[in-house]
């Protein structure tokens, strides 16, 4: 490996990217577009989920709980119902997505045992919305029952009882109840995967298609020098896009970032090695630009958007699909990003996904190094 040759190829590639409108659009505008589309698209969907209420008790307590729902941006109460048959009909007819049933003994149990249950029925046909709605409902109930418990504690002088409503972990770390918090870190993974693989998938196929490869391979430059020289510019672009996404997420969408920049930089670099390596593999294997682009979209966008857990929680997938997600390299990065943004996990907490990414990166780098052959055969 000669640094001067690598640099020559990197410089040449950079000039070509600068003069290629298509590459510029992918590198510069696609991240912004994706952030806006996915950032807003998802969060708008999830506001004002229609709910119905069947209040069996009709007490002051139950009214107070329902006020919590009404006050939240995430729900609109569309009907007050009198029996279970009406509840079922309301769900079936799409009058509401979620129905809440407050039991007869709601207040009684709250004062006797310090906790009480509220039933929640969801229309499961739209799993994703239902899941997120359930999360919100739990959080709304939690803030309410927290208040009640504190009041009880003030009366009797007892320690506040444990229990109440158990929340899912992701809602715990998403205390603003904003689904964007939960989505945006994953969107960053999606953007990096798409941009990285799309750009690099063109780098080798372009040279084959334009006939410049034949001349390049007649020089003493080695295939590893070609690979390194071609990937360096995309690595830099990938990191720049990551910084852009971070800034946009924090300052535009106000997603908290609680981790360290070092961990983010380190894991992002690992992810880029994998993504660029996959793009390079595709590019080396498929000599037409269009074919390479299509395959790149297929192997990055599809698994990343469906199976990485960026929007659809992995633990709610069928077991077989859950097993498959271990093969999707983006899943590790999504896990890491969510932990970095929302929990502020340190590099040691993330040891296992980082380890998985290191294995992935080594395998892909190894394969990519052998994929490109300096021959026309």
């Amino acid at each position, binding site marked *: 490996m000669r640094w001067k040759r690598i640099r020559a190829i990197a410089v*040449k590639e950079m000039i070509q990217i600068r003069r290629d409108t298509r590459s510029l659009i992918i590198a510069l505008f696609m991240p912004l577009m994706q952030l806006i589309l996915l950032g807003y698209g998802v969060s708008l969907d999830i506001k004002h989920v229609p709910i119905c209420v069947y209040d069996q008790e009709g007490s002051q307590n139950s009214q107070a709980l329902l006020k919590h729902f009404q006050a939240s941006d995430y729900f609109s109460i569309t009907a007050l119902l009198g029996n279970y048959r009406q509840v079922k009909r309301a769900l079936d007819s799409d009058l509401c997505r979620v129905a809440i049933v407050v039991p007869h003994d709601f207040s009684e149990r709250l004062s006797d045992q310090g906790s009480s249950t509220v039933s929640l029925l969801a229309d499961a046909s739209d799993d994703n919305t239902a899941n997120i709605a359930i999360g919100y409902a739990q959080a709304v109930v939690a803030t309410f029952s927290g208040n009640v418990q504190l009041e009880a504690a003030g009366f009797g002088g007892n320690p506040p009882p444990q229990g109440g409503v158990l929340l899912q972990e992701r809602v715990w770390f998403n205390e603003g109840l904003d689904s964007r918090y939960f989505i945006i870190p994953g969107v960053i993974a999606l953007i990096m995967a798409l941009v990285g693989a799309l750009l690099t998938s063109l780098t080798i196929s372009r040279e084959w298609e334009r006939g410049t490869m*034949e001349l390049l391979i007649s020089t003493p430059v080695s295939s590893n020098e070609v690979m390194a020289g071609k990937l360096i510019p995309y690595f830099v672009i990938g990191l720049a896009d990551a910084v852009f996404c971070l800034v946009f997420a924090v300052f535009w969408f106000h997603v908290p970032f609680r981790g360290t920049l070092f961990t983010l930089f380190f894991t992002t670099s690992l992810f880029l090695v994998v993504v660029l390596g996959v793009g390079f593999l595709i590019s080396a294997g498929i000599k037409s630009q269009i074919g390479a682009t299509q395959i790149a979209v297929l192997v990055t966008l599809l698994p990343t958007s469906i199976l990485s857990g960026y929007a659809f929680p992995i633990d709610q997938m069928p077991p077989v699909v859950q097993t498959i997600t271990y093969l999707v390299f983006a899943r590790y990065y999504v896990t890491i990003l969510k932990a970095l943004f929302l929990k502020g996990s340190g590099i040691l907490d993330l040891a296992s996904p980082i380890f998985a990414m290191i294995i992935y990166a080594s395998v892909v780098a190894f394969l990519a190094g052998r994929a490109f052959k300096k021959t026309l055969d």
Partner: protein
Amino acid sequence: MNPGEDTLVEASHLDKSFPGVIAVNDLSFTVQKGEIFGLVGPDGAGKTTVIRLLAGVMAPDKGTVVIDGIDVVRDPERAKEHLSYMPQRFGLYEDLTVDENIQFYADIFEIPPSLRQERIVPLLTSFGMEEFRRRLAGQLSGGMKQKLGLMCALIHTPKVLLLDEPTTGVDPVSRRDFWKILYSLREEGVSIVISTAYLEEAARCHRLALMYKGRIEHCDTPDNLKKLMPGTLLNIESSQARKVQKALQGQAGILGVLLMGDRVHVTVDDPRRKAEIDRALREEGIEAHPAVPTEPSMEDLFVELLKKEERG
């Protein structure tokens, strides 16, 4: 031919097949230092494939290529330091400027910056390209593109230059310039292997290989090759050249008739046929100068030899 010290290219028993085609078939030749070796042959004869095998961008199925003592198949990277290859299809970056392309190949061949100016400037001058330095390669004319290709090929002063139809689509004046440069290179001891579709160009090579269906059918100096011409060649100038061709085709004692603009080349079995031909044309009422014995051109030779191959 025994490869001596001055042999820079030695191809022996090269075979290369593609699905359904034998592109190169048991082919051997050598090229000496300072020699211009020409490859001619009809489309699909295998010229490009041979040059690719020499350049090390494709591996032969069988056989060896040795460039300046280095085995190209076994040690391609080292051999490539002494080689320059100009593919049939323009191989430079059209979205880079002339200067950027030159600098790129100078970097790839690790030309030290101190040497660059003294090497690049004279090249630009002798190719008449100084004023186009900032132009994108894609916006150059066909002839200028080929010159740029040759310039990039010469940046590292190669010992062997492999040119695949470098003058196709280039106007005759630029083509002459191109050949001037090739002659000056051979004076510096560079060996040149060149394929060409222009037969008058082929006559300028020191040695010429006529390729047909993957084989070299004849390989010699242009003068010796011309001796392979059967019969005698007569040149007839006429404003009605096409009529002359029609009238003579298939007549007794006439081996071949070749139309060349306002001239017709007629191959006859015996020089004494001249009188018969002149009389026949007069009787047909065709205006024509009397037939004159002439030296066969490369085209005559080529057509004649190919005819023989096709007959088997």
